[in-house]
């Protein structure tokens, strides 16, 4: 309990943490603590990522033990292969969400972005963007040891493909934007509460939405637990950030959980532990049945006291595709631009960096935007009413498009990832840097085991004017504001 203030800076989150601790509910922080220290070889990128059966091979970072894998893969190639694997995995995660996007990449990708991407790829001797290059990337993963330079270029290619694929996909019903509300306040209401996490089937979300909103009397309200889920007329109200989804579940405020295939197993475990009905978010599940179960649970339980004084949720617009501009930058407007994004991580205080950073940059007169958990925390605290919220999947490319429209990346001071959870986020961050943006990641990434890879990566990004700064420790807000200022 004495570490509650280190887990979250938000008073209601702290109250929920206290309640969970008193009830003996194990949450993400307890699991993370039990896993300390996490595998040092993996954290440095020195554990071979190839799935051959000779391994596992690991290279001693201090030069006393093994300096090559059994197959002969050296230190630099092992770290580069790790980077490649992260980007490859990120691309697969994106494809899992938007499987159709790859088939028609040439047509769906905005022309300006395609031109810029092909220009960057061409300057490194890489082939232009195409859906068929996906096959090449799969083959390369199976190829085994390669020169670290080639692996790095492959990783950059993948990261760009991931960024463009995700950004070119269509999200939601509306062509460019959707309404959303964020904050613990979305929980308030007298009806049953159904929480969505992961990526549930859009058909099921729509069916449930029709059942609830279309009904004469509202029977349940739908909220998203950390995931930005398009629904009819916009996005599902975001009850919490992804880092706080377990926390919110533990409070007893949610009567039923619909979990997409990529939802964390911990959410299912917690539902079992707390006897909350959980269904997988596939189209096969019956909307009516889900609704009835949630309502029946709601009748049996009372709303937790914790939520009696919760401030109302904040309404805002989420920009989701380049078909309509987000207004982040315009030719007439002047001023520097900063983007804050990224996920909650258990070893960082939830919301602290994003809120402090947005306040600091706002004071400097910067135009701010962002996506992901960082965006939720900023929106939840209403520090910046002009903050531009983007869809986490399509938003990064939309932001790039806006900047290109406004004449390039000159007005962009930087894009800061306050934390990384999924490989997709990492691949997107790298893709943005490869396109020419300044990107910082506030947490360590597993490439520190090779100075050569770090150097070579920086050099390659510099060719297109990009930068990827990462830290060997969880960064403090001061370090990040200094990075923004040091343009």
């Amino acid at each position, binding site marked *: 309990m004495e570490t509650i203030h280190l887990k979250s800076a938000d008073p209601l989150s702290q109250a929920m943490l206290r309640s969970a601790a008193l009830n003996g509910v194990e949450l993400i922080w307890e699991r993370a603590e039990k896993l300390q220290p996490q595998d040092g*070889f993996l954290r440095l990128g020195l554990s071979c990522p190839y799935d051959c059966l000779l391994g596992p091979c*690991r290279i*001693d*970072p*201090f030069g006393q033990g093994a300096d090559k894998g059994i197959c002969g893969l050296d230190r630099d190639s092992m770290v580069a292969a790790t980077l490649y694997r992260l980007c490859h995995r990120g691309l697969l995660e994106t494809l899992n969400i938007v499987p159709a996007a790859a088939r028609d990449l040439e047509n769906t990708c905005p022309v300006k972005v395609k031109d810029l991407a092909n220009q960057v790829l061409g300057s490194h001797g890489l082939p232009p963007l195409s859906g068929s290059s996906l096959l090449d990337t799969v083959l390369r993963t199976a190829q085994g040891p390669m020169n670290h330079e080639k692996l790095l270029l492959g990783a950059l290619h993948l990261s760009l493909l991931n960024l463009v694929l995700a950004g070119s996909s269509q999200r939601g019903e509306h062509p460019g934007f959707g309404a959303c509300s964020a904050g613990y306040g979305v929980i308030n209401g007298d009806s049953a509460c159904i929480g969505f996490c992961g990526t549930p089937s859009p058909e099921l979300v729509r069916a449930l939405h029709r059942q609830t909103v279309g009904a004469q009397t509202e029977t349940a309200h739908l909220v998203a637990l950390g995931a930005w889920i398009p629904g009819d007329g916009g996005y599902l109200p975001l009850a919490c950030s992804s880092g706080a989804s377990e926390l919110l579940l533990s409070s007893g405020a949610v009567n039923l959980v619909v979990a997409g295939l990529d939802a964390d197993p911990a959410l299912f475990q917690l539902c079992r532990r707390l006897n909350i009905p959980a269904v997988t978010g596939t189209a096969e599940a019956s909307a009516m049945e889900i609704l009835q179960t949630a309502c029946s649970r709601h009748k049996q339980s009372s709303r937790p006291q914790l939520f009696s004084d919760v401030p109302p949720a904040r309404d805002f617009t989420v920009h989701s595709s380049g078909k309509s501009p987000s207004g982040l930058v315009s030719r007439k407007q002047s001023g520097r631009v900063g983007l804050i994004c990224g996920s909650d991580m258990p070893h960082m205080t939830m919301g602290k960096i994003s809120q402090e950073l947005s306040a600091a940059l706002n004071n400097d007169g910067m135009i701010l935007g962002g996506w992901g958990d960082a965006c939720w925390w900023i929106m939840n605290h209403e520090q910046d009413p002009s903050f531009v919220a983007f869809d986490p999947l399509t938003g990064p490319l939309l932001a790039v498009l806006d900047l290109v429209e406004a004449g390039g990346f000159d007005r962009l001071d930087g894009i800061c990832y306050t934390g990384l959870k999924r490989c997709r986020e990492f691949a997107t961050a790298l893709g943005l840097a490869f396109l020419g943006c300044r990107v910082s990641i506030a947490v*360590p990434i597993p490439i520190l*085991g090779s100075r050569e890879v770090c150097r070579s990566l920086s050099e390659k990004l510099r060719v297109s004017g990009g930068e990827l700064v990462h830290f060997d*420790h969880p960064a403090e807000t001061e370090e990040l504001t200094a990075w923004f200022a040091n343009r």
Partner: protein
Amino acid sequence: MKVIAVYPDRCTGCKTCELYCAAERGSNSKSLLKAVREEPSPMPRVRVEGTNELSVALQCRQCRQAPCLDSCLTGALRRDDQSGIVVVQENRCIGCWTCTLFCPYGVIYPWPERKIALKCDRCLYMEIPVCVDVCPTQALELVDLAEYDTVLQAKRASVLETIRRAGDRQGALILE
């Protein structure tokens, strides 16, 4: 006197102890991610030896009659009065490596870049040694020598059981 007990049956050979020992005790930054970029490269005081079939973390056994103490030419090695641990006084060590030759376990290491001998001092000034703290399978444990007989008793009981089972099969007489 507290010493580090090693359980080979629990050791998976992951070398986490080596990694974090080098980072915590051999680097200036005391952080793994920073230590990999330090010069000279940090060195661990514990080494994992063995094969996929058997692996074990080896570090100084803090011998009661320590040959290294007698071999040290400059008196750099001494036994800490309070804890009974053998420590290297780095300012006195001249890097002659005589102690490394005399150590019966081969667990005193030359550190040529810093011209000193390196050995486990059981993280004397820390509550729990780093290797014990980070071991994911608890293959390393900090035990008091006074309680050590309890550990050994369990081992003796296990040996006796093994012999008894072997005796049953071969018809040998086991004295109880």
